[in-house]
């Protein structure tokens, strides 16, 4: 195995473990820690895929902002931060459904070419040329949609508070 392959295997294992841990631990603050690690791990995968801009974005937005937001959500909705969730049983049906979905997706793997595929270079300069050049107006439009969503979120929080 080459070095990148080993790195990928490690990062993938960490991603799955941290994701699962985030959902399974009963202390919500630990959940935030796990999910933070998960986001950082994904950023590392983006670097591995030679998408440094996305890696940085992932670190900034996900590992930074989203994690803090989630932590904030937990803090304002509880009296004590370090309190344990009531144990939630793992139902058979949800597990089976999730597993079945993975199996269905995995069937697609059979049809892929085996062996390694070289990664095409797509430097951040090219990304920015595409994103803010040809697709700039659309990006603006999407930004507008996000702005509306966030405004809605603010309204939702303010509503009922006279």
């Amino acid at each position, binding site marked *: 195995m080459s070095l990148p392959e080993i790195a990928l295997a490690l990062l993938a294992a960490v991603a799955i473990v941290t994701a699962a841990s985030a959902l399974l631990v009963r202390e919500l603050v630990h959940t935030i820690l796990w999910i933070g690690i998960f986001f950082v791990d994904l950023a590392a995968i983006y670097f591995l895929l030679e998408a440094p801009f996305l890696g940085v974005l992932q670190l900034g937005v996900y590992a930074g902002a989203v994690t803090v937001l989630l932590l904030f959500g937990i803090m304002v909705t509880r009296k004590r931060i370090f309190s344990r969730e009531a144990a939630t049983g793992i139902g058979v049906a949800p597990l089976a459904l999730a597993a079945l*979905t993975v199996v269905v997706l995995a069937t697609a793997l059979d049809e892929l070419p085996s062996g390694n595929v070289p990664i095409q270079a797509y430097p951040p300069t090219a990304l920015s040329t595409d994103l803010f050049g040809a697709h700039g107006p659309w990006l603006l439009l999407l930004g507008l949609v996000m702005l509306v969503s966030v405004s809605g979120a603010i309204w939702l929080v303010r509503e009922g508070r006279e």
Partner: protein
Amino acid sequence: MAVGVLIALGESLSPGTYTDVRFTWLHLPAPPPGHPGAFPNGFSLVMGTLVDPLSALMLVVVTVVGFLVMLYSIEYMRKERGLPRYYAELSLFLAAMNGLVLADNLLEFFLFWELVGLCSYFLIGFHYERPAAASAAKEAFLVTRVGDVMFLLGIFLYFAVYGAKGPGLGWAASGFLFVQGNHAFLAGVPAGNPTLLTVAGIMILGGAAGKSAQFPLDVWLPDAMEGPTTVSALIHAATMVAAGVYLLAVTSVFLGFTAFDSLLIVALGGITTFFAATMAVVQPDIKRVIAYSTISQLGYMVLAVGAGFTMVGLYHLFTHAFFKALLFLAAGAVIHAVGTQDLFRMGGLRKRMPLTAAAFAIGGLALAGIPPFAGFWSKDDLLAGVYSTLGSHPAYWPFFLLAFATVFLTGYYIFRAWFLAFSGEPRDPSLHAGHEGPWEMTVPLVILSALAVVAGLFVYLPGFQALLLHGGGVAGIPPVYGTTQLLLSAVGVSLAGGGILVAWALWGSGRIVPTPSAAPAAGMRRVLLARYGIKSAYDWLGATGVYTVARAADFFDRFVIDGAVHGFERAFGDLSERMRRIQTGLVSDYASYVVGGLLVVAALLLVVAPYLVGRFGGG
């Protein structure tokens, strides 16, 4: 004025030629041959208006009587509730009646025929909160329905007979159009099936009998007197019930009847005339007396049409409309004034209501056929006409004699009503003191009285005569007074006068004190009041026959249809009760339904679709 227009119209006609005015609103052309919807004979549907002598005559009757009744209604109905409904229904009726008269083909005629029947139902049941009125409305609707179904069958049969003759053949091929000369044209074509033709005629006769309350479908008209008197005057005396006679006239002019049908029509007319008159003899209810006399007079018209004197029949319809509407409106004035319809409780109204008494007397004289009143001229002409056919049709004899005997009865029963209501002294002190109505009620009475006096003489006006002569079946127009006819007239007038005299002797001379109608009837009087048991027979038929069928249907409905329905209901109810439970409100559960659905789609795409493609071959 309308009468003047009519006469002017007649004068404008050039003698000896048939004139009509035809507008077509709607023409559904026949599909081209070979088209799956095409009739073999190129039949097409038409809707339009046709003004010919027959409809011109009817139009005058409908509009004149309609206007006067509307005017009269203003006062007569003033205190009623539901007036918008009343006037709306009356207007709808007038529109439908005009449509019927102006229809230019048999299907359109049938359409309006049903509409006037519907309006009649509405208006009889105007006081629907009264059980008697509601049931009378239902009865009228159901009994005329029997006739309507027969009429429709008659149309089908005529279509079957003439429609099978091939393309381009007159009446059927042109979409049931009323075309003058069609009768003669069809007579020249060998009938495809003479028996069927006869049956078709019988069916048409059945339709007419239902609408014109001819024996044995006559039970509904006396009961229809539950409606307001104005409605009785307009619908059940002057116009709608005449539609049956008009149908017979139209059919005989445009289609022709077979000899057997003619005999049947004559028989029906004669029998109805006599038996309705006998039932009128004992009636205690002033409106019912007039109702029976309407049936009786309609019988005369049917008789005339059957004997081939179509235009004479319509001439009698014309005069009858005026004097019968007059009688009804006069009776309405009495009822309006005293508040009862029971003749035995009235009496002595002549002094308080002289104008109404005079109007009723004029109507009665016209009805009885005393010259020079309107009824004399038309009825006399009618009877003379039927008499003239007796030589060639001896089978008409008994019906002619029945019709002739009825003249006596007519004079008797109508003046019995007059003497009971107007002469003598008031018998029931509890009644309101009678008084004349306001001008809205008296003006129609005066106008109709004038018409009841002079309408019979119109036949001698050249214009009117020309109009009558332009219709079909013009025998007996104008009346010719030879020796035989003078003799017949003399006998007829004496019979009517005799009837009036007997009425005076019994009820007007003060020799018999009228007994209250509540006394139990006995003997012949009981039979007559029970209408020869025909109504009871219908009731029995309804009660046992229909009830048995209804029970069976109810059983079927309850156990088979309802069983199935309730089974479905229960099954889906259970199902929905179970489906309800999956709506837990828990977002996780909804998410799992989404994932489950995705998996089903995936299974379909990945497993089922490849299998099917492999099994049956891909596209």
